[in-house]
């Protein structure tokens, strides 16, 4: 069986030089590109399983590369490496078709874990949940654009961070999501806040959804690590 092929795109040569051996040791074949143009060329020519794409690059930046890939109907999973940690910015990246994103400076082993997770959950050619406006799970609908959650037509009263937590869990159904990961995604201040901030928002969601934590319909606690959205989720445009 041929190795899984990744392309890493970053304008920092030293970053490529360090990231390549790390990914190779993790069992991947690695191609690299030092700018957006080269990345688009390689993506058009080679069969890739995943692209790790830096957001800030001269000429064609990561977001533009992503947009052009999606416009040409190339749905190779993309993990964006961002330096801007504003939630709105990240939501926009996901809406534009990124499958995941990681903030610099990231834990290198976290990148390896994310690559594995994205590869597991995306079947090549199918649209990722992150490309849809609505996430639907049974009676529950999350509108990612309006930042609203509805249950059978009734809008639920949730804080913006609780909606952020629910959205991230729904984007990654059946996967264990670490508290630290949620803090990084939704708050963006992971090292400054305590993971208990996440528990408080989960409690808020459960209360509004009238969840029984002993027999959860939606969010399950994974003792010692984090949370998992246990119901199936489908995307709706």
């Amino acid at each position: 069986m041929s190795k899984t092929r990744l392309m890493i795109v970053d304008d920092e040569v030293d970053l490529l030089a360090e990231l390549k051996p790390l990914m190779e040791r993790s069992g991947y074949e690695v191609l690299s590109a030092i700018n957006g143009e080269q990345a688009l060329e390689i993506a058009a020519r080679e069969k890739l399983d995943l692209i790790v794409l830096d957001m800030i690059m001269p000429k064609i930046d990561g977001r533009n590369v992503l947009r052009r890939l999606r416009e040409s109907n190339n749905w190779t999973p993309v993990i964006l490496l961002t330096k801007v940690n504003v939630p709105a910015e990240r939501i926009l990246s996901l809406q534009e078709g990124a499958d995941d994103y990681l903030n610099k400076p990231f834990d290198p082993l976290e990148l390896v874990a994310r690559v594995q997770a994205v590869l597991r959950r995306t079947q090549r050619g199918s649209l990722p949940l992150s490309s849809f406006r609505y996430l639907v799970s049974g009676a529950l609908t999350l509108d990612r654009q309006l930042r609203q959650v509805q249950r059978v037509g009734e809008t639920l009263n949730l804080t913006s961070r609780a909606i952020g937590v629910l959205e991230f869990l729904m984007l990654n159904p059946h996967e264990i999501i670490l508290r630290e990961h949620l803090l990084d995604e939704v708050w963006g201040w992971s090292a400054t806040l305590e993971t208990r901030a996440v528990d408080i928002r989960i409690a808020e969601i459960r209360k509004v959804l009238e969840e029984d934590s002993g027999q959860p319909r939606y969010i399950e606690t994974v003792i010692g690590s984090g949370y998992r959205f246990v119901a199936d989720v489908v995307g709706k445009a």
Partner: protein
Amino acid sequence: MMRRFAPGILLSLGGFLLGFGVSVLAQQEILPNPVFSASYEVDLAGLAARAGALLGGLTLGVFLVSWGIQRNLEQKKAALNKEQVASQQRFFQRLDHEMKNPLTIIRIGLVNLQQSPALSAEQNASLARVSQQVQRLQKLVIDLRLLSELGSSNIERKPVNLRALLDESIALSGPAADASQRITLNVQQMPWPVADVLGDRDLLVLVFRNLLDNALKFSVDGEPVEVRVSEDGHTAMIDIVDTGTGIPPEEIEHIFEELYRGENASGVPGSGLGLKLVQRIVALHNGTIQVRSKPERGSVFTIRLPLAPETT
């Protein structure tokens, strides 16, 4: 502001009233009118009214001009201050951006080295120390980012219960056993419990954790730290009191500056951004922070936060 203009206002009002009074008295013929002085006939009532009006008008004019100048100056000062804050935020953003790539590369390089076989124990220990220092730098970058990103647009404003908030902040402060043994929390209960404040729970936890961590760090092991909470119907007041090393008077005005480390802080771990973050978050909540301190006696940090409207 009003105090500064009080003499002007009083003078103009006084002049006006004096003129009006003399004029009324003259018309009522309590004061002789007309008054003959030398060979001129003077209408005292008319003269007094005009003089009073002139004096009043002049003082009112002076008051209005100086009020205008003052207002203009204050507006310019506020604009300058706003520009300074914006420029500082831009600087932090750039610094944060510039530090991210090198830090990312160093971290990946470290993992590559740590995963390489045949490292001696000494090399491993050395790499572990470097990793720890990189973590420290990363904490600084994250605090810088938080400082540069914190604006009124990205904070939540919901009623927050102060007791629950402080219980949580205490539980998260310092080494857990130490914090729970040393910190006492005293929240006003009578005649009614302290009302909720309006704010961002997560950021407020950060504020009190930072202050409590400092109180624990800068006092001798085992010395108590006290948290006192009260309210006056509009504002909640939270005192964080320690009996630690205190802050020398000449350092007080600098402690909220970015990366400022006082003499007592050398050797005590910290990013140098904690109090700046605290000050910024409190300001975003329309609150204030004050500090009173005596060297070798201790410090009191007082935070005032507006109460949530529906509970006042």
